[in-house]
C-alpha cells in the first residue's frame, strides 16, 4: 500500500507532469480556456493513462522489445477511441468543447512516456497507481491554469461569476460595484503563451534558487518538454536520442565539449557583428 501512496505523491507533487516535467504542452495550452475544460481534459487523459498503464504492464512480458512502441500506440489509441465515444454519448458539451484534442491524446507524450519509462517495467498495481497519480497531477495542473485564465480573461471561475465585471456587478446596498475589466486576451490564444511563459519563468527561478542552496533540481525541466524525438536541440545535455534516427539512443552524454564549442562559435559571431 505504501508503494501506491508513493506513486500518487510522485505523480501529483514530486514529478507533476505539467509543472515539473513540462510534458504534453499542446493540450495544456489549447484546452485551458476555462477551469471546467481543463478539468475535463485532465480527467479524460487520466482515465486513458491509468487503463493503458494497466494493460501495458500486464502485457509487458508478451510484447517483443522491437515492436513495443507501435504496440503501446495501438493500446493507447484503443482507449482514446473508447473515451471519445463515451464522452460523445454522455458528456456532449465536453466533447464539443475539447473537439479534436480528444483523439490527439494519443500523441500526448505523458502517456507514451509513462508506458515506456514505468509501466513496461513494473507490476500491475504500482503501474495503475502511477497512472492515477500522473493523471491527477495533470488534471490539477490543467485546472489551475484554466482557472487563472478564466479568472483573468472573463472574471469567472468554473462558470460562476466571481469578480465584479460590468456585465455582472456586485449589488451591495443598492449600489452596483464593478471594478474589474476582463482582459479577454487571456482566454484567446496569445494568453495561453503568456501564462506558460510566466510559469516557465517561475520554474527557472525556483530551479536557480534551489541550485544556489545546493539542492538537486535536475528534475525541473523549465521549458524542455523532454520530447527529444521532435526536438532539434543537438547540444542538449538531457538528450537521449540521436537526431539521425529514433532507433539509435546515444545515452545521457553531457555534451560539455559541444557546448564549449558552441560558446566559442557564438563569441566569434558576436565579434564579427
Amino acid at each position, binding site marked *: 500500500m505504501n508503494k501506491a501512496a508513493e506513486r500518487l505523491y510522485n505523480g501529483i507533487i514530486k514529478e507533476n507532469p505539467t509543472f515539473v516535467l513540462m510534458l504534453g504542452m499542446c493540450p495544456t495550452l489549447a484546452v485551458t480556456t476555462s477551469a471546467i475544460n481543463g478539468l475535463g481534459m485532465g480527467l479524460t487523459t487520466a482515465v486513458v493513462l491509468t487503463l493503458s498503464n494497466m494493460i501495458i504492464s500486464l502485457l509487458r512480458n508478451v510484447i517483443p522489445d522491437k515492436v513495443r512502441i507501435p504496440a503501446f500506440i495501438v493500446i493507447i489509441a*484503443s482507449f482514446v477511441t473508447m473515451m471519445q465515444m463515451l464522452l460523445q454519448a454522455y458528456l456532449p458539451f465536453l466533447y464539443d468543447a475539447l473537439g479534436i484534442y480528444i483523439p490527439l491524446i494519443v500523441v500526448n507524450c505523458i502517456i507514451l512516456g509513462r508506458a515506456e519509462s514505468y509501466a513496461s517495467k513494473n507490476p500491475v498495481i504500482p503501474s495503475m497507481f502511477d497512472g492515477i497519480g500522473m493523471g491527477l497531477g495533470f488534471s490539477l495542473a490543467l485546472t489551475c491554469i484554466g482557472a487563472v485564465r478564466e479568472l483573468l480573461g472573463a472574471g469567472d471561475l468554473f462558470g460562476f461569476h466571481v469578480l465584479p465585471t460590468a456585465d455582472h456587478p456586485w449589488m451591495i446596498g443598492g449600489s452596483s460595484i464593478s471594478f474589474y475589466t476582463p482582459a479577454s*486576451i487571456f482566454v484567446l490564444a*496569445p494568453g495561453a503563451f503568456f501564462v506558460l511563459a510566466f510559469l516557465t519563468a517561475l520554474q*527557472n527561478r525556483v530551479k536557480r534558487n534551489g541550485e544556489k542552496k545546493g539542492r538537486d533540481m535536475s528534475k525541473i525541466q523549465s521549458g524542455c*518538454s523532454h*520530447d527529444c524525438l*521532435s526536438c532539434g536541440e543537438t547540444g542538449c545535455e538531457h538528450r537521449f536520442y540521436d537526431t539521425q534516427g529514433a532507433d539509435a539512443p546515444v545515452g545521457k552524454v553531457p555534451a560539455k565539449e559541444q557546448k564549449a564549442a558552441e560558446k566559442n562559435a557564438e563569441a566569434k559571431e558576436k565579434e564579427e557583428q
Partner: protein
Amino acid sequence: MTELRELLIILVSSSIVSNVVLSQFLGLCPFLGVSKKVNTAAGMGTALIFVITLSSTVAGVIYQYILVPNHIEYLQTIVFILVIAALVQFVEMVLKKYMKALYEALGVYLPLITTNCAVLGVALTNVQKEYGIVTGIVNGFATALGFTISIVILAGLREKMAYNDVPESFQGMPIVLLTAGLMAIAFCGFSGLL
C-alpha cells in the same frame, strides 16, 4: 469556379487565419525546439510540408475508400496514427535510396516528424470538417505552410534576440514563449480577413 474559390479560402484560412501553431497549438514541440536558426527552421518547415501533404493524401484515400464503405469510421484514430508512422518510415527509406539530394536536405527532420501532433491533427481535422480528398490535400498543404511561416518568423526573431539582455528568470524558454504570444496577437489581426 466556385470550387477553386473554396480551395483558395481554405488555403488562406488554414495557413494564416487559424494558424496551426499560434491559434491551434499543434506541433508546439518542434516550433519551440527547432527554431534557433532560420536555416534549420526552414528545413523543418519544408519537411513538414512534404510529410503533411503526403499523409493527408494517404489518410484521405484510406478514410474515403476503406473506412467509410465498411462503416468503421470509429477506427480513424488508430488507423491514422499507424498509417502516419509507417508513411514517415517509408518516405525516409525511399528518399534515402532514390533521391539522395532531397534526403540530405530533409533527412534529419523526418524522424522528428513522426511524433508531431500537427500531422495527426490535420488528418483528423479533414475528417471532422468533412473535406473531400482534394480539399483535404489543400488543407494539409496550407496548414504545413502556416507552420513554416510561423517557425521561420520565430527563428528570425530568436536570432536577433540572442544579442539581447534578457532578465535572468526569463532566459531560455520563457522569452521564446512570450515572443510566440506576441506573434499570436499579431496573427489574431488576420481573423477579419475572411
